């Protein structure tokens, strides 16, 4: 459906944002990816992807309340938009379609 294809890291970020639901801000996303995928992510590479996705309209963000932590700086919470969700689903279906197209024999060989 879409001409835009999510990159692998973009997909991971969007999925993580979806997982964290209301609590998806920079550090939380980094930690989540680290825990689930055992993958180190720098703030720079995360942020640049977040802003790019936001610009595409797959993500949206709003500021949280200021707290005494983080030097009084507010957190920016990201969430997946409807368009973003559709893209995620489309991606998942593409993958599944690919999986389903693999001849059974190969999978069996691997398993065996």
């Amino acid at each position, binding site marked *: 459906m879409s001409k835009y294809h999510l990159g692998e890291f973009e997909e991971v970020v969007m999925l993580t944002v979806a997982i964290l639901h209301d609590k998806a801000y*920079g550090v939380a996303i980094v930690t989540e990816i680290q825990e689930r995928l055992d993958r180190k992510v720098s*703030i*720079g*590479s995360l942020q640049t992807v977040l802003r790019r996705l936001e610009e595409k309209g797959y993500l949206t963000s709003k500021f949280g309340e200021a707290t005494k932590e*983080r030097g009084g*700086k*507010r*957190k*920016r919470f990201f969430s997946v938009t409807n368009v973003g969700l559709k893209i995620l689903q489309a991606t998942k279906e593409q993958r599944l379609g690919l999986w389903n197209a693999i001849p059974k024999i190969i999978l069996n060989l691997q398993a065996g």
Partner: protein
Amino acid sequence: MSSKTTPPTWLLRFFRWFCHPDFQEDIEGDLLEIFTQQVAEKGPQKAKWYFLLEVVSLIKLNLLRPFKSNTPFIPVGMYKNYFKIAWRNLYKQKLYAFINIGGLAIGLTCFLLIFVYVQHEHSYDRFYPNSNRIYRVYQQQVGNIYSGSDYFAVTPAGLASVLKNEYPEVTQATTIEDFEALLGREKAYFWEKGLWADKHFFQVFEFPFLQGNPRTALTQKESIVLTASLAEKIFGKQNPIGQKLSFQNNEQYTVTGVIQNPPVYTSFQFSFIINIEANANYSDYIKKETWNSNAYHTFFTLNEQADSRDLQRKMPALVEKHVDYGENFAFESTYLVQPLHDLHLQTNINFDIGLKGNPRYLNLFSLIALIVLLLACINYMNLAIARSIRRAKEVGLRKAVGAQRSQIISQFLLESIMITALALSLAWVLTQLLLPIFGQFVERPLVLDVVATPWLLLGLFFLMVLVGILSGSYPALFMSSLNPVEVLKGKLSKKNLGIQLQRWLIIGQYAASITLIISSLIIYHQFQYIQHKELGYETEHILSIQVQDPSLNEEFKVMKEEWLQQPQVLEVSTSQDLPVNSNSNTVINNVENFDDKSEIIIYNNKVDYNYIDLFGLELLAGRNFSPDFGTDAERKCILNERAVKALGWTTSEAVGKQFYRMQDPDKYTVIGVMKDFHTHSLHLPIEPMMLMLKEQLSTYVSVKVSPENLPQTIAVLEETMAQYSPYPFNYSFMDDQFDQLYKADLKLGKTFNFFTMLAILIASLGLFGLAAFTTKQKTKEIGVRKVMGATAQHITHMLTKDFLKMVIIGFVLAIPVAWYFMRQWLEDFTYRIQLQWWMFALGGIIAVIIAFLTVGFQSFKAALTNPVEALRNE
């Protein structure tokens, strides 16, 4: 938080600088959060490294701050507000406004005046299309000192053609001699400056022709080219081409061309040019194979690729090949190549051609202009700092509502630029008014014309910004550094108000002013000394007439008799030179022990029987020239003491002794010794001098008259002379001629006085403003003191002693500076005053008095006010 460690500030700043402002806050928060984690887990050192990596990883294209102006919005309202506040401040405090603007305007006026002058002096001879390729040759004869210099501008007649023919890089060369003469036709004769020049003149100096052809204008022997103004003077509306003019008793000169009037910045001063082939002396000299005399100026052009230094290296060979003065001439010639552009400001060459500037004036004037301008800037700074107490609250408030430091700085700079702009417009008007007077003083037609030189406008704009920033930068930096909390709480103490700097600025101002005062005093005394120094000859009530009419020779004796019959005429004499200005010199040898080293340069003058009496020269031994002996005109001479001493004799034994003169096989006999008189200005030492007899009319006729009824006497003299000669009666007084010797010095003195006064005025303005301010600050204190019983004297003392202390420190600083510069200046005079302590002391006292009057007036006024008023004030 587990630790109080913070990430490196510079990294944070760096991050804030490059990060897009929209993303900055939350990303910074993330960074800090991770940093805190890292510190807890891995310790501060590692955390910092990690922080660095994180920041670097954030340099991503889509996270960067946009490159275009980050504040596309120009806060016009803010600028409007700055102007309004600046204006209100000026308006509310008229005294400060006056002192600031007035002081700056005076400083800028000086600067502009001198700028115009300096620029004018540097613009000479640049209008020829090929001016940067024009050079001339002058020479040095090491040791042949004449009037204090052994450089000579004159060269042999044949030099131009040798340069042209033997040196391929020389494209054209011309020979010039300058002179003054009567020129005209029928009854209309004019005394004009002219040039003898050969036919290549207009190929070197490309003056635009109105009529005639520059290639052929000077090819005919008796041809003459006029400037437009002279052509109009002689011929009116007639066509001058082909007309005959009379010059030096020859009526056959034909006008072959008319050139545009040369611009004012032309070194050569002339209104006509005559083919030099008509000059008899030149025609003789030019035939000579080897050169033994110098009388002409040689100018030439080089081709584009040539380097004048290469030509310079070839000069010794040229001299070797062509120059030969004969055995008896002791000095070697060195030929020097000089660009035309340097002609105007080169002043130490004898017999030079063209109008000269004064490079010493230029440097001194420029220095003074800068000092005066600097003093005015300091005033501004001082007053701005003093007023900062008033303005501090404004700054506090601005900061409290969110002004950044850069905004406060730009506000104050803008304000000082605005004040400079006001001052500059005032200075502009003043400069236009003063320029004619100043131009007359430096003898230059100075103009400040923006229309003709548009770049000047740009220059003025830069001047405005520069002065604005110079005077406004410190106040701006200082004001913007104030802490809003302290200011608004009223916690400003005197200490942090830059009082210390302010003091030093005032001290500096006074040091400069006092240096100028002391210098003026010393210059004044040196001039007094010059004017009252015993010169050895009389200058009062003596008229001297420069005789131009060669036909007067025969009638001179008759005319002299007729003059002497007038009771007012006391004595008449004719001479080649006047004692103020000994011009011609020669070389003599002692007979008895002859060798090369014994050669003596001696000034000689040809005089008649009456010369010694008329000028009151004193004879120490021997006798004056006298008609009774009949043979005095034949190698008899009167020497001065210097000459006698140089020849190795004493005054008493000199009479009757004999010596040789250069290139003359016969001996000269001393018949008298006269007392030394000043042969030149007091800049130069007294030189050996010899007088010889020439009864016939020479260059000058001097007349001693009785002091009564001078105008009538002059009228009689003129009337008598008119019977014998149609030439103008061209006379001057000896004492004026004497003053002419020191014209440059006198002008320097006057300029110095003028700028000294300006400097004092500006410094006093500053001090006045500051005193007014301090006094106002202390109104309450004075009130309380008075209530407690202080007298007016106490109060005045209290208020003035601080200022006087600063003036005295300034004085102490000024002494060595003034001493150093004045010693240098005086060294230029062979005869000079000694520097004495009281000259310095007097300068200091004058400064203290001025400062006391400036400050004391205000203090005294404050001391006399009723304390009730002071205390009720709030």
